[in-house]
């Protein structure tokens, strides 16, 4: 029985290059001497460190705790000593630094004492499961890294379809493919946990038809698990089918609204690697401390997939794949379509990094950018049915309000338009530029509104203070006037006041003439001491007088 499939608009068929890295089994990466674990590895707020420099940490120990709702904890990915908590370059297109916890590993890779597993997941409340997933620091491993516990919260909606994304449509990347081939039964265990948390009616696992081994493994595992509800769906290979909204369209025919989320139409999409991580967390009590990464490209000697502790420097991984082959042009994190070039290979691997693509310097220089000839090829391939050409013209002219009219923020930056552009225009770069400019303008606008509010408040406060001061003065003036008006009586008042002041002064004087109070009530013993002291003082005085008299003589 085969399921009806739909199709999404556009898309491309770039060369796959997947055979480069899927010929070797997944290997464990050696522990690097130093792990650099960024506190911010996903969308949302950074985690706050809970260890200090010099602390001994064990593998799996929580070292930074989630802050706020959209956030995930961070764990030590191997045992060792925290040697620094400082800014280090992280995988980000800017090449900038962000706070990281640096661990010098001891090479023993000792796990912390595993907390007892709280029984079988089927006996757990979905909310408890979500708390466990949150504490395990699990984020979506497909790319954006949205904290997974949020996507396990249906917020009162009925989830019809829970989709597991094993599409992996981007060229070169094979980490999900290899994970399914080798660990399908663990993935199925994770799928069952997530289905329980979401109470989903239907569970689909989507895999592209260019991964027959993975399809077979997944079918076998779901049959073994004796779970009738998991359906493995084979989808025809096309880029960017792995995009969340594109995959939903293909599998269900439904469209996620612009600016909307899939759960609004009763669908949740999770990556297969996330299911694997959730299985490790719930059934084994192991937080997310490693992930499978594809190290590939014509620039590495032995492209393959490695299971890598989070925070391992990229250079360490390239070295484990036999090093580089001659002149390297770029090291890209992510795939060739959506990834970005890194500024250095000292950058650590984070939870959302699925691929390290090392490219060799091409024999001929890249083709030059030419003017747009308005051919419209970009609009034909756009999976979101935008007008990439219009977006390009407006972004180029910095007309950001116009780009928003053309729904710039629906762009998923898949790169299809740039791929087909006969003039080699870096279209996605223009869209990314426009998006960050618009965000920056929005931030500035917010700040300006705040400043306006504060300035207006200040002006009104100054006015109010002025008004109050005048009112006070007027009151005083009125009081003085009243006194002046009352004539003789005023004079008598004055005399009385003077008399009262004189009396007060007199009383004070008298009080001062009284002996000091601290010698008023003395015990006989104290009195004796005082007398002795007085006598001593008198003797001393007499002696000094005598001495000075003598001198005078």
């Amino acid at each position, binding site marked *: 029985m085969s399921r009806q499939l739909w199709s999404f608009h556009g898309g491309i068929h770039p060369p796959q290059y997947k055979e480069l890295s899927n010929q070797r089994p997944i290997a464990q990466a050696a522990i690097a001497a130093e792990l650099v674990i960024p506190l911010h590895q996903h969308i949302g707020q950074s985690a706050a460190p809970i260890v200090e420099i010099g602390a001994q940490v064990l593998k799996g120990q929580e070292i930074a705790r989630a802050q706020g709702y959209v956030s995930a904890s961070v764990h030590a990915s191997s045992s060792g000593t925290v040697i620094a908590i400082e800014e280090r370059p992280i995988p980000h297109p800017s090449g900038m630094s962000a706070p990281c916890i640096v661990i010098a590993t001891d090479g023993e890779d000792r796990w912390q004492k595993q907390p007892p597993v709280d029984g079988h997941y089927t006996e757990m409340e979905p909310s408890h499961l979500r708390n466990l997933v949150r504490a395990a620091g699990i984020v979506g491993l497909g790319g954006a890294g949205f904290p997974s516990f949020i996507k396990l919260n249906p917020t009162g909606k009925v989830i019809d379809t829970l989709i597991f994304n094993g599409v992996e449509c981007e060229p070169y990347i094979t980490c999900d493919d290899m994970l399914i081939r080798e660990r399908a039964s663990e993935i199925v265990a994770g799928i069952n946990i997530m289905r329980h948390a979401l109470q989903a009616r239907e569970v689909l696992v989507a895999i592209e038809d260019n991964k027959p081994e993975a399809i077979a493994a997944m079918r076998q595992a779901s049959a073994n698990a004796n779970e009738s509800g998991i359906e493995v769906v084979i989808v025809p290979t096309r880029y960017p089918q792995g995009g969340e909204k594109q995959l939903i369209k293909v599998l269900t025919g439904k469209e996620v609204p612009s600016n909307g989320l899939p759960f609004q139409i009763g669908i949740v999409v999770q990556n297969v690697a996330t299911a694997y991580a959730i299985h490790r967390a719930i059934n084994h009590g192991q937080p997310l401390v490693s992930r499978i990464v594809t190290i590939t490209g014509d620039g590495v000697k032995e492209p393959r997939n490695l299971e890598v502790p989070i925070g391992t420097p990229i250079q360490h991984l390239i070295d484990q794949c036999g090093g580089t082959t001659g002149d390297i042009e770029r090291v890209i994190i992510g795939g060739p379509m959506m990834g970005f070039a890194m500024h250095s290979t000292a950058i650590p691997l984070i939870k959302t990094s699925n691929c390290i693509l090392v490219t060799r310097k091409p024999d001929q220089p890249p083709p*030059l950018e030419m003017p747009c000839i308005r051919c419209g090829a970009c609009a034909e391939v756009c999976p979101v049915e935008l007008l990439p050409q219009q977006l390009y013209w407006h972004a180029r002219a910095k007309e950001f309000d116009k780009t928003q009219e053309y729904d710039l923020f629906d762009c998923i930056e898949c790169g299809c338009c740039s791929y087909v552009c006969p003039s080699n225009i870096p279209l996605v770069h223009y869209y990314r530029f426009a998006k960050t400019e618009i965000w920056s303008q929005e*931030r500035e606008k917010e700040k300006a509104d705040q400043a*306006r509010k504060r300035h207006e408040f200040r002006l009104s406060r100054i006015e109010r203070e002025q008004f109050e001061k005048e009112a006070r003065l007027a009151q005083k003036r009125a009081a003085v006037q009243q006194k002046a008006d009352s004539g003789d009586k005023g004079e008598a008042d004055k005399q009385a006041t003077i008399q009262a002041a004189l009396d007060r002064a007199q009383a004070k004087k008298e009080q001062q003439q009284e002996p000091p109070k601290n010698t008023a009530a003395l015990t006989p013993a104290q009195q004796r001491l005082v007398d002795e002291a007085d006598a001593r003082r008198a003797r001393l005085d007499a002696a000094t007088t005598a001495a000075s008299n003598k001198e005078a003589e």
Partner: protein
Amino acid sequence: MLTAVLALTALALVFGLLLGFAAVRFKVEGDPLAEKIDALLPQTQCGQCGFPGCRPYAEAMAKGEADINRCPPGGQTTIISLADLLGREPIPLDAEVGEEKPKMVAIIDENICIGCTLCIQACPVDAILGAAKQMHTIIEAECTGCELCLEPCPVDCITMEVVPQEIFNWKWPYPEQQTEANKA
């Protein structure tokens, strides 16, 4: 002939009354144009334009008493959006009022501050916290970088620093044109 004159007079009266009523009934408080202009200004409240704050400058522009190129913190971006709103041609920033600078924030050297409160009184957005003979400090998130606190400080303990570029406010650079010209 007479009918026509009468009819037109009657119509004129009716419409006159109608317009007169509408003018009173639907009177708009404040100046909506000044409001719109004010929304485009950066609200630094620095007074570099020669007016005591952004709002007075906006009102002057609405009345046509001031040109649109007198706001250095807003720079060329603000001039372009003002030109757009007012249907004018964008012109370069008036060099007389100052030059466009990157976003700044004031920093008080707390070792030197004597707690005189003069800067607190000068700050247009109440972004300085402190009291007499107590150390003062800037609430950086509220500081507009107007520099009005620099001048009154008797011990020169306030400096302006460029707002640092961080990951959250990083922007993709404008794509460079890979043409034959700049390749060579």
